[in-house]
């Protein structure tokens, strides 16, 4: 009986949440992961997004901003459902977020069909850069291939003759390993994809690396997997034997747990927290003051999303029905990005620089990331030509 009452009242409660009429606010829906082991990424994105809103006084073009955060639980179908709820029930003006490529790909169609703008603050699957490109999609991050391409370039610069590639067996993992091979000129002596997200014990693969004796090892292991991989890499004694090159394996979130294991291991990134432009200095300083930690690249991308949207809303003076005008403004990337100025390619993915980041200890002895060099300037992803959009 009680259970029936509970269920019925739950149905009634849902039924009574009114269909939102078009208010005088800018409504933004934010989809990310807020539960499970990767919630730490979602929280970093949320903190950065909120900080950015605070920095612009929580108003865009005079209109107050309202944000609704939804949790995708790292599942594509849940992310899609939450996205549909944001569009159909909450009637948001913009959808932002998406850590994972598969969640983004699942959620794309309903957003595009409803002609709502989707700003990806992380995921960059090659399909959306190519055949599936859309006038309603913008990225403030990167396309999956770009970063490993930069690492490939760097390995060429360092004269690495043979490399072993290791990554997780899902779309982004495969993209990363492909991306390295697009620019790397030496010989690939090993290519392994590990079960994702289940396999966290890399002993078998590390043994194979040791046997192959390559000049270098390239890995992509995001989030907690990066912590686990690095631990085992050091424990197996490989750290002194085979140098490691990474993409998205060492970031501000995983670094505290990787500790000294990460010292001296290079990675490529489009943004490092010590980039010298004004917007970045303010972002990192305020973030550190408020949250007692450095923001990650996930956060930086979310921070930029606010800048991008704001530029569009200001340009149309708050009249959000002028979608074409908003798009034209966003295409100019006319805002102070924390990575410095950049342009958009025809597929609405950034054409940007990639830097070499290294792990060092800062003035207080805390481990932090440092920009060491620019690997490549104005790099564009290789899928732009497959996108039919021209402007």
């Amino acid at each position: 009986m009680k259970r029936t009452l509970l269920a019925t009242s739950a149905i009634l409660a849902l039924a009574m949440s009114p269909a939102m009429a078009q208010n005088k606010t800018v409504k933004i829906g934010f989809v990310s992961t807020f539960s499970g082991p990767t919630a730490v990424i979602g929280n970093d994105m949320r903190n950065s997004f909120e900080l950015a809103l605070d920095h612009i006084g929580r108003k865009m073009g005079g209109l107050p901003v309202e944000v609704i955060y939804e949790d995708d639980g790292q599942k594509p179908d849940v992310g899609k459902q939450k996205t549909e709820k944001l569009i159909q029930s909450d009637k948001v003006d913009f959808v932002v977020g998406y850590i994972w490529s598969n969640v983004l790909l699942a959620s794309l169609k309903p957003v595009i069909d409803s002609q709502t703008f989707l700003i990806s603050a992380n995921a960059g699957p090659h399909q959306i850069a190519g055949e599936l490109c859309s006038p309603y999609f913008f990225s403030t991050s990167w396309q999956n291939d770009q970063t490993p391409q930069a690492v490939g370039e760097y390995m060429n610069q360092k004269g690495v003759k043979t490399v072993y590639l290791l990554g997780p067996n899902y779309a982004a993992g495969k993209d990363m390993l492909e991306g390295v091979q697009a620019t790397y000129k030496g010989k690939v002596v090993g290519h392994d994809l590990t079960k994702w997200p289940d396999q966290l014990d890399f002993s078998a693969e590390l043994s194979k690396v040791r046997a192959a004796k390559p000049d270098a090892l390239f890995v992509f292991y995001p989030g907690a997997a990066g912590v686990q991989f690095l631990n085992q890499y050091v424990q197996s004694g490989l750290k002194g034997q085979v140098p490691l090159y990474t993409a998205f394996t060492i970031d501000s979130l995983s670094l505290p747990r990787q500790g000294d294991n990460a010292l001296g291991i290079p990675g490529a990134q489009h943004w490092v927290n010590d980039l010298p432009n004004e917007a970045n200095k303010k972002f990192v300083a305020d973030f550190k003051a408020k949250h007692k930690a450095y923001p990650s690249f996930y956060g930086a991308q979310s921070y930029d999303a606010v800048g991008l949207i704001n530029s569009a809303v200001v340009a149309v003076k708050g009249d959000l029905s002028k979608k074409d005008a908003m798009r034209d403004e966003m295409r100019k990337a006319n805002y102070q990005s924390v990575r410095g100025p950049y342009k958009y390619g025809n597929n609405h993915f950034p054409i940007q620089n990639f830097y070499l980041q290294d792990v060092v200890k800062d003035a207080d002895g805390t481990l932090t990331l440092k920009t060491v060099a620019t690997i490549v300037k104005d790099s564009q992803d290789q899928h732009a030509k497959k996108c039919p959009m021209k402007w």
Partner: protein
Amino acid sequence: MLLFVEQFLNGLQFGLLLFLLAAGLTLVFGIMDLVNLAHGSLYMLGAYFAATFTTLTGHFIGGVVLALMATLVVGMAVEVIAMRRLYGRDHLDHVLGTFGLILFFNELVRLVWGPAGMNLTLPAWLNTSVELLPGVHYSMYRLSIIIVALAVAAVLYLVVMRTRIGMLVRAGASNREMIGALGINIKLLFTFVFGAGAALAGLAGLMQAAILTAQIGMGENILILAFVVIIIGGIGSIRGAFIASIFVGLVDTVGRAFLPDILKLFLSSSAAATAAPAISSMLIYLVMAVVLIVRPEGLFPAASK
């Protein structure tokens, strides 16, 4: 050849870890006829306790011992509060009830320790590598896992085969009603067995945590493997669990390591690269399916039903 030795050791280490997990599971299943999905949660708690206590006390071994005791206590508490009510019921009831416990423990850990997971830092003397044979380097820590797990297996064998308690445990595994009829305090025995199983799971969890770090939900994935092990080995049989877990550990590790190369002999390179992870994941389940079809009671069943 040297690579094979290293992979063999890796497989052995993984198998022994599985054994620690499977031993508790098979005992509980064999004696109390209880399907405990929440065994993975005890594994996870062992890891989190170890991470916390080693940081608090600054002492590795001390922290580990405290963690084991804490897991033992939690295990016994869970038995008294929740498991007791499930005895004698349908297996489906066990599956559902303990599934609910998994959800509960995952969220509880998230509330107490936060969503990000925890590190278990090893002391310097464990964090090195050892040259076992010329050219074969092996992580000191993994070697110690093998040694500890073998020691625990030996102790378990001695206890089960040579002590009175062990006799009761074996008797209970083959015929539950009989030991009740003999006037033994069943309730206490059950609590003890469950607690011991929990401590073993906690040990497995904390040993794994140094390699993999403590994560929410870390128990679920390995739990399925533990069930596969006890099905193959035979429910209620520790000997079966030992042999099956070594076997599963070797198949999984060696399969993962050499399958891509074997497949490349038959398929194109890219097809092999994508098929290999899939097939190596399936390998264990295939083995279990075959065992179930050919010998449904498992290889070394304990129960004489």
